[in-house]
């Protein structure tokens, strides 16, 4: 009864039946972890352990442990924060915007991408908390009445908008992800016995798969997607306003919101590709996450990468065209100054030039090239944030204040902390949760699966 479209290549290969989907995905949850998983998990825990020590020292002794100085008050902390938040944009984009656009290829990757989003936002939040210097006072950012001896928070400030944007984004993404997991937990519950049945039974919230429940589930998914779509765009818009509403040359730019959003999708998709290309091999999911998926994502990368490239050029043009000497100087200094030219040209190479290779179909469909470029893109996106933040601050209005930023071991250690945290959480997710949305993949099996010979 399976039908293959003559125009579109199948989304699921290998002649999978609906039952095969259950088998293939549930197997990883039910089997003992593989040696590769244990090795990766151990490495993540070691990184997390070292990072935790560095983060603890940063909290104990204060952010003087970082390489900040009087001129450069934001450097790696905010760079890392924006980088992680940007990475955290792909998951909700894939599950919400691609759901609204009825892009069925999202079904194989949305679960893992959403998990990645949630973990990336946790990593980003750890820098927000750390950069406050006194993390135990983090609740001061909330609008609490002034019985605490302070005023209300200033709702004119983009930093307060950020608190609302990031926490809303995290909460809504988490809920969206969990609602999607519920039917799959029910599938695992029905296959399990003993303590696993109790645990997955609780996680499945007593889902029975009745038509009425599915009808409500679909209504919830659609409205959550509709809410998440503007939300995901708003988050990086507001993050960019942290810079754009200031009066620092190099930050004070109206182009920032769309430019940051495109950059976020760009880096998020690259991170999804990095993770999915590993996951599909480790968990033998080549039939579910195919070269077609990779190619679709690469097309989005070349689109958003080009938007980012045009934004860089527009910024440069406007810096000259505006005839503001400070603005022009900042940009000339970024690209050709003695201090940071290497960061600027790393950014240009990684973000503007390298993704253009995806115009070639062979590159787009090559796993090795895609894996390499997906990492290159995220290196480039880190440099983008570093260039924006550090170079703009390094040349103050007073030449006597000019400074250079050198990271300390604690800058590096705190960055490693987030890597350890991210991969620990992702590996735990990959082991104990279904990495592919079984229910959604089953719903496309008939229309988009490769033909099985026997049927």
């Amino acid at each position, binding site marked *: 009864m399976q039908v293959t479209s003559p125009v579109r290549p199948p989304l699921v290969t290998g002649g999978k039946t609906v039952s095969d989907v259950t088998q293939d995905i549930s197997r990883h949850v039910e089997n003992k972890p593989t040696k590769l998983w244990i090795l990766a998990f151990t490495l993540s825990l070691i990184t997390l352990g070292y990072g935790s020590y560095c983060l603890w020292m940063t909290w104990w002794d204060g952010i003087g442990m970082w390489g900040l100085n009087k001129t450069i008050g934001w450097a790696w902390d905010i760079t890392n924060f924006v980088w992680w938040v940007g990475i955290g944009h792909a998951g909700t984009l894939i599950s919400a915007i691609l759901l609204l656009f009825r892009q069925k290829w999202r079904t194989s990757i949305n679960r893992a991408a959403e998990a990645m989003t949630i973990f990336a936002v946790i990593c980003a939040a750890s820098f927000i908390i750390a950069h406050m210097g006194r993390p135990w006072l983090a609740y001061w950012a909330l609008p609490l009445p002034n019985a605490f001896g302070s005023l209300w928070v200033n709702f004119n400030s983009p930093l307060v908008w950020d608190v*609302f944007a990031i926490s809303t984004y995290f909460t809504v993404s988490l809920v969206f992800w969990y609602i999607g997991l519920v039917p799959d937990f029910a599938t695992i519950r029905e296959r399990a016995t003993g303590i696993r049945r109790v645990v997955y039974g609780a996680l499945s919230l007593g889902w029975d798969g009745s*038509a009425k429940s599915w009808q409500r589930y679909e209504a919830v998914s659609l409205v959550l997607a509709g809410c998440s779509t503007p939300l995901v765009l708003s988050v990086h818009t507001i993050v960019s306003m942290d810079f754009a509403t200031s009066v620092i040359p190099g930050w004070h730019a109206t182009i920032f919101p769309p430019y940051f959003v495109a950059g976020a999708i760009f880096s998020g998709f690259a991170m999804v590709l990095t993770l999915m290309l590993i996951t599909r091999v480790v968990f033998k999911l080549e039939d579910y996450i195919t070269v077609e998926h990779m190619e679709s994502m690469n097309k989005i990368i070349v689109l958003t990468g080009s938007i980012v490239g045009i934004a860089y050029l527009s910024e440069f043009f406007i810096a000259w065209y505006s005839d503001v000497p400070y603005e022009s100087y900042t940009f000339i200094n970024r690209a050709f100054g003695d201090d940071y030219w290497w960061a600027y040209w790393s950014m240009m190479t990684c973000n503007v030039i390298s993704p253009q290779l995806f115009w070639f179909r062979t590159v787009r469909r090559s796993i090795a090239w895609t894996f390499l470029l997906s990492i290159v893109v995220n290196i480039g996106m880190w440099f983008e944030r570093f260039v924006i933040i550090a170079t703009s601050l390094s040349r103050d209005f007073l030449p006597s204040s000019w400074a250079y930023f050198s990271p300390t071991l604690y800058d590096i250690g705190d960055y490693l902390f987030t890597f350890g945290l991210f991969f620990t959480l992702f590996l735990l997710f990959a082991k104990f949760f279904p990495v592919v949305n079984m229910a959604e993949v089953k*719903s496309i099996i008939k229309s988009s699966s490769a033909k099985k010979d026997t049927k």
Partner: protein
Amino acid sequence: MSKGTNYIIGVFDDEDVLMDAVGTLRSSGVKIQEAYTPFPVHGLDDALGYKPSNLPIAAFLFGLTGTICALLLTIGTMGFDWPMDIGGKPFIPLPHFIPVTFELTILLASLGMVATFLIISNLKPWGYEPFMFDGRSTDDKFLLVVDLDKNKLDKDALTNLFKQTGASEVNSKIVENH
């Protein structure tokens, strides 16, 4: 035996056969108790005669609550409770309040709708394991469940009807009344 409710369960292997069966059964006057599927089958709710869900309306109302709360919070604190003169700018600059208002609207709409969904569908992590007519309905089988007492046809007639519509198995189950 008389204590419980008698159910006839038609097991289907394919969603299109299921959809046709729903049409045939309903036009033969059979009252279908409920259908159970491993994934959302588009149009099944219409075929079963279910009214569209009101959850989007709930989401709108929760979202509206979020908007009002956010405006009360921002205007109340910045405009009335502790107005601050920031460079002579207005005390209530509405454009500056848009981000927080937007975020709280989305937050309340999402959380409110999901909470409503969980409550009306009786989804909760504690207390019970749901009654499953056939555990395979979370894997690859589609079930149509018919309450024998609420239908005029007897067991054999229903079984035949199910077979004719393409059910791969027809089972019966007696469920004790709670």
